[in-house]
């Protein structure tokens, strides 16, 4: 466990204030405020339906909030024009839960795609850079394979290689350990720590794997039903007296109340069409 003290002296790279978001009439985030500092690993934890994935989508600038403000690398994302938004996105990297590699491209082409789209580098340089990033994630030599030829752990590592190809300031990772065996999961945790230490990235990780969270986190944000319960170092989280936090850490489910009407509407597809645009 790194257990590093919060890097309070470092600049803030993500600043979220009073973020509220709805899906239809349902309030998902209820006034979330948090910040991520330069070079720290912030782990976002919470039970199912706590809003952690929604919060991550906001941090990745994939969702629009109902209210609240969010600054990424000092820029208010609601005020950004198209060109500024593209420039900002070049400084962000994301490794999705399932990898989200493009199935029609080889691993190498997947990794080179951001370079191809955003730089004027010649193909040979792009190939060298892709190979270097693949070496970082221990996948050198796999660039000519298709994603379908990789294992789950390899796909996640290839996704990390793609996420870091532009040397982003902030790296987001959604459930990096989900579905992996303990050895592969542990190797991926080590990779996350290496990325922070060697490349100085700020890393936001959403996970429900406690062991992994406590191993990599500088700070942990605990979400519950759209609210932030606590933000602190792993030691502070462990020692926190709140019963809800301890229940979460000890995997005790609180009584989840599910609205049957809402559940039925979601099952039958009668929810208003959401996110149908590209």
């Amino acid at each position, binding site marked *: 466990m790194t257990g590093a003290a919060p890097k309070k002296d470092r600049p803030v790279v993500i600043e979220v204030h009073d973020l509220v978001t709805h899906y239809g009439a349902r309030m998902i985030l209820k006034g979330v405020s948090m910040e991520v500092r330069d070079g720290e690993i912030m782990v976002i934890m919470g039970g199912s339906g706590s809003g952690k994935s929604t919060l991550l989508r906001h941090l990745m600038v994939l969702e629009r909030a109902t209210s609240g403000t969010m600054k990424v690398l000092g820029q208010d994302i609601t005020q950004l024009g198209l060109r500024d938004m593209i420039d900002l996105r*070049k400084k962000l990297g994301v490794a999705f839960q399932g990898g989200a590699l493009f199935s029609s491209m080889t691993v190498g082409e997947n990794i080179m795609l951001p370079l191809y789209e955003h730089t004027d580098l010649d193909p040979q340089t792009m190939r060298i850079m892709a190979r270097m990033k693949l070496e970082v994630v221990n996948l050198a030599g796999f660039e000519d394979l298709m994603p379908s030829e990789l294992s789950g752990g390899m796909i996640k590592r290839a996704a990390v290689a793609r996420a870091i190809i532009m040397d982003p300031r902030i790296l987001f990772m959604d459930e990096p350990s989900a579905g992996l065996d303990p050895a592969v999961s542990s190797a991926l945790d080590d990779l996350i720590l290496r990325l922070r230490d060697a490349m100085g990235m700020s890393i936001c990780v959403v996970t429900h794997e406690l062991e992994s969270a406590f191993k990599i986190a500088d700070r942990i944000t605990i979400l519950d039903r759209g609210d932030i319960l606590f933000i602190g170092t792993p030691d502070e989280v462990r020692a926190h007296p709140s019963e809800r936090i301890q229940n979460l850490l000890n995997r005790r489910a609180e009584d989840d109340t599910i609205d049957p009407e809402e559940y039925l509407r979601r099952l039958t597809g009668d929810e208003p069409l959401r996110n149908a645009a590209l």
Partner: protein
Amino acid sequence: MTGDAPDSRLIRSLDRTGRKAVAAVEEVGNAGILVVESLYWLILGPRIRQPVRLDAVINQMMEIGIFAIPIIAMMAATIGVMLAIQGIHTLRIFGAETKVTVGIALSVVREFAPLITGILVAGRSGSALAARIGSMKTNQEIDALHVMGINPVRFLVAPALIACLIMVPALTFFSHVSGLLAAGLYVNLELKISLAAYFDQVVDALSAGDLLHGLSKSLIFAVLIAVIGVVNGASVTGGAEGVGKATTRAVVQSISAIIVTDMLFVFAVTR
């Protein structure tokens, strides 16, 4: 629920109908936005160093156009022969079977070639587009594009739309030639009219307006196929089953839209 009061069931039914109507309007709106956004990226993309990539357009042109040539040739030829058989059979009643060429030329060029080409491209490429975008959405690949600063409309939709706009009229023209040639071969066998004489009659029967009529329709069909494929792909929810449903819906909607638009176009232009 069985215990529901009739009022409650009525309200629920109205609620459901209203939601579906809103969703339909939203889909039409999304389709319009996609076309405008594609044009935006095509024209203004290079200015912000985000051009629509030529290699992506060429890939799509290969998929939509070149690989469709065999099936288009076969279907257009079949339709041409069918028209020749029916035309000769019908005109023989009046002893005017030698005039069949006029009917074949106008029917193939103005109606059947654009229609059969549109339907085949909708079945082949509209469905493929919906499936591709749908599966990309469920695999978070669209989100990945957003996060990488790659606009999905520029990256996925604009190349497909441009490729359709080029290849559907090109395939329609190819379909004209295939249909007329196959019909000419049948006429040659049945009525002993030489191919040269047949094509002379075809050229006499057709005007530039007839050719333009067929090709103009094919341009509209191209937009419909691309946009309906993308809108259905983008609305996918629920994993692989959702992708399958969206693909089927895209084919049904685009074929229906092509036929209805064809009728409206003919109504507006021909009367």
